[in-house]
């Protein structure tokens, strides 16, 4: 156990975490150079494309240190985005230390700090690593200052490296061995195994990623899952090298995988503790907090006959994404679908893209909503996250909405416009303080609902990309919302209904009307688009009918070309939804969620 180190890398997005991970793997010879693909841990196309890590992956590396000893380094790759702090948490629980990666040209960012606080919460030892020192814009002294001042870490311990060129990578490995503590735990003690992630394997079912805290788990062992009370037999157990490597057993301090004949992740609770069935531990591993979805949206297949496939896809996706929750839902306009809960907008977007790409589904998502707490005049209290279930306003006493504490870091020249943006988003108690010369952290208490609609986009354009954003849930506060409905030729399009603050209702309705006008194709008749509150129209737009739509020539006998075009267009119509007699393309449902500035 003395020769094991389990660690993760904490970084702001784009600070080079995946590249560093690649370099460490390469240095330890876990993979031949010629088979090396960049960002090897980010196995999903989506991650590679976006350059960010969504799913945490783990790998065990064998490293011979300068002292001549062999070490096993368990690298736990954590997601780097605010929506995924729950995944970060789980990963952190299985580490003793963390590399705190800071971009030498960018310095400490909002996320770096947020994740560091999480790491501190989990008592992790931290080694600051200053990356990208090869960049011309690298300012190592300033970054060291930020590490001292903002993070409160000793910058003398900071390791300098360039994951891109490989410079300093060995120093990083040495720091892992020398500065991070080995795991504690008793291999002979009662079995406590923490599940910190799960992957889905189409042949083997759920593959659990685990950290053994105490005891030893072996193949064939009868085990108990302490939270779910499920009993299973360990079918396969081993280390996570580049691929799974069965070893027959794992002991305290080890990080690896377990296959136990579990088909669905709904049978597993990520963060659960596995123990021996016959001689169970007294308690599960402490400190687990279940992550709660805060953003809700209904997902519908474009083609109604894909509902079954959507069901299967969600089941499978859930195997890889414990944070996703869903239940059956139906829409007047779109038929059957699922109401889903997400950790945030990025999570929502990623789930949507994975469903579309990995499962080849074509989907429609309703306008995302937060969860409101409603108190009726008769004292009855309940939660709703679906505008369709919004009660008659005359029966409502109060509505409360979730507030967040937003933390925005940026160069100080943007402070004025960002404060303006926060005010526009109903931000309260907006304050700021200087982190270091020229860098400001602004905090504001604002309704989560205001962040759902184009806040990231606006922030990015306001700060020309320099602003970073993080948030935590705060509390529920009384608010004044109305239900805005969108009607197309007088038919309500219920997935576009939303609960909006009264002051914002008209502007939002107008935005929707304009966006739909631009995205719904002309049809043979005039289309009226309206935004309404309880039957009162507050915004409208019109799409004129086609006046001419005919190919001039259709002879020389080339009927095939024209028919094929028609077939293609008709196929395209499958990506449309009929609401009343109007065809609404999928793109319209997406466009309304984007801000005007795109």
């Amino acid at each position, binding site marked *: 156990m003395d020769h094991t180190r389990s660690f993760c890398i904490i970084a702001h997005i784009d600070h080079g975490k995946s590249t560093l991970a690649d370099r460490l793997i390469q240095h330890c010879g876990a993979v031949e150079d010629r088979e090396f693909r960049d960002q090897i841990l980010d196995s999903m196309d989506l991650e590679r494309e976006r350059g960010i890590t969504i799913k945490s992956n783990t790998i065990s590396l064998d490293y011979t240190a300068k002292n001549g000893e062999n070490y096993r380094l368990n690298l736990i790759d954590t997601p780097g985005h605010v929506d995924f702090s729950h995944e970060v948490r789980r990963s952190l629980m299985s580490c003793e230390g963390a590399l705190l990666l800071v971009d030498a040209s960018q310095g400490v960012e909002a996320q770096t700090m947020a994740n560091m606080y999480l790491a501190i919460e989990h008592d992790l030892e931290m080694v600051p690593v200053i990356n990208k020192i090869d960049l011309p814009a690298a300012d190592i002294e300033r970054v060291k200052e930020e590490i001292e001042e903002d993070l409160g870490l000793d910058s003398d311990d900071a390791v300098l490296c360039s994951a891109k060129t490989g410079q300093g990578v060995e120093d990083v490995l040495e720091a892992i061995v020398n500065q991070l503590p080995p795991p504690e735990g008793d291999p002979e003690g009662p079995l406590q195994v923490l599940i910190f992630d799960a992957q889905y394997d189409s042949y083997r079912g759920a593959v659990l990623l685990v950290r053994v805290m105490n005891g030893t788990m072996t193949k064939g062992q009868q085990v108990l899952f302490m939270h779910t009370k499920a009993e299973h037999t360990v079918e396969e157990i081993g280390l996570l090298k580049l691929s799974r490597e069965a070893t027959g057993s794992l002991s305290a301090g080890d990080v690896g995988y377990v296959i136990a004949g579990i088909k669905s992740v709904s049978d597993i609770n990520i963060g659960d503790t596995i123990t021996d069935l016959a001689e169970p531990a007294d308690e599960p591993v402490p400190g687990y907090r279940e992550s709660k979805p805060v953003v809700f949206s209904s997902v519908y297949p474009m083609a109604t006959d894909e509902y079954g496939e959507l069901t299967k896809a969600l089941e499978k996706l859930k195997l890889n994404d414990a944070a996703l929750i869903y239940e059956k839902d139906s829409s007047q306009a779109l038929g059957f679908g699922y109401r889903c809960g997400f950790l945030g907008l990025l999570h929502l977007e990623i789930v949507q893209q994975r469903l579309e790409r990995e499962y080849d589904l074509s989907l429609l998502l309703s306008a995302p909503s937060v969860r409101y707490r409603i108190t009726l005049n008769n004292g009855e209290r309940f939660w709703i996250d679906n505008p369709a279930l919004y009660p008659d306003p005359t029966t409502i006493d109060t509505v409360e909405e979730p507030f967040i504490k937003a933390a925005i870091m940026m160069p100080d020249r943007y402070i004025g416009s960002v404060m303006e943006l926060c005010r526009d988003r109903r931000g309260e108690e907006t304050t700021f303080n200087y982190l270091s010369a020229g860098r400001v952290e602004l905090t504001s208490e604002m309704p989560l609902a205001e962040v759902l609609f184009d806040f990231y986009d606006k922030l990015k354009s306001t700060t020309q990309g320099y602003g970073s954003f993080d948030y935590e849930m705060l509390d529920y506060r009384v608010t004044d919302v109305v239900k805005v409905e969108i009607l197309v030729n007088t038919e309500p399009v219920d997935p576009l209904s939303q609960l909006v603050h009264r002051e914002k209702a008209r502007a939002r309705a107008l935005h929707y009307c304009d966006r739909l006008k631009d995205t719904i194709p002309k*049809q*043979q*008749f005039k289309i009226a688009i309206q935004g309404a509150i309880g039957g009162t129209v507050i915004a409208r737009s019109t799409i004129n009918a*086609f*006046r*001419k*739509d*005919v*190919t*001039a*020539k*259709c*002879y*020389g*006998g*080339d*009927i*095939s070309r*024209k*028919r094929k075009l*028609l*077939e293609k*267009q*008709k196929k395209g*119509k499958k990506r449309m939804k009929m609401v009343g*007699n109007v065809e609404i393309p999928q793109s319209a449902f997406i466009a309304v969620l984007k801000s005007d500035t795109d």
Partner: protein
Amino acid sequence: MMATMSGIDIPEGASTRAGLYVHVPFCSSICPYCDFAVTLAGEARRAQWERALLDEAVMYADCGFDFDTVYFGGGTPSALKIDRLTRVVGGLREKLQIDPEAQVFIEVNPEDVSPETARAWRDLGFSSVSVGVQALNDVSLGILGRRHTAEQARRSVESLLEAGFDTVSIDLIFGLPGQARSDWEGQLREGVGLGVQHLSCYQLTFHEGTVFGKRREAGLMTEMGEAPQAELFAITHEVLGTRGFEGYEVSNFALPGHRSTHNLKYWTGAPYLGLGPGAHSFDGVCKRWWNRSKVRLWQRDIDQGRRPVEGEESLTDKQRALETLMLGMRTADGVDLAWLEKRFQTDVIGPNADTLRDLEARGLISRRADRIAPTPAGMAVADALSRAFRIEGD
């Protein structure tokens, strides 16, 4: 109109017998809007074409088709010297089953027409002639890159009428950038005034790869907007309609008895055989095939004893039903839906009950019993109409 034993819903003027199309790929210049298979090649290549075409005809000698229409299209068939044309017509009659009474059509360019050529074509057995007038003023002709003048066009029509063709037709193009309503209306009136029995009026289309297509891409030319296009389209049907010309297809107008019996075959699902580069064929049941469009490749196949077919497809009943609807929405006669259901074993009326009611209420189609037909307003949006229908399995 009635369904016949061969299963074709025959509108007025159409027949169930086959049409023969001959593609003459030669032009003396290439029009900047044209995307047909054409070439500028000279006499040597034309001689090769002649030989290959007749060889191709031999390959279809046993196709079983009995042709009652023959159509020489292009390209510019009138660019062929009369003796070559004579040999081709004679050769085809020799190798294929062509009805002695068949209607024979030819497309000609005004600059090729003289009283002498007109008579020669008539004597050769051509019964109908279609003149590529395109415009009746020199400014428009200049924009279209045509090599004749308006005056030449008018004289060519005169000569053809004098030569005694059963039907003389002119092609006109509308929707030139910036074209005024009055300009187009004037051309239509003048066209009718020439005494022709048939007009084909095409909206100028910007095809990718053509000179116009490239100019549009480069921002040098803009397509006319939808509203003025619609207006010109409506005017066309109105002006010609009041002068006794029935708009029997989106772009085609005829005095009674002068519909293009050959083109109707394409639109009504009758069989046709296409010879020459890029020509299309249909067996009248479910098979469509088309020739290589590059003259050289077309010829090489024939020289090597192969049919010069580039592609073919076999249509399902549903595809045929879709095609029939698509084409029907372009013709004044429309489609008999009950016949369509029976012929292609496909539900159409039931699944489209709402759509049919809706389109009728909007004045886009008219309906008598189970036959539906587009109104002129419906014809203007014929593509949208054919998209509106659901065919079982869609």
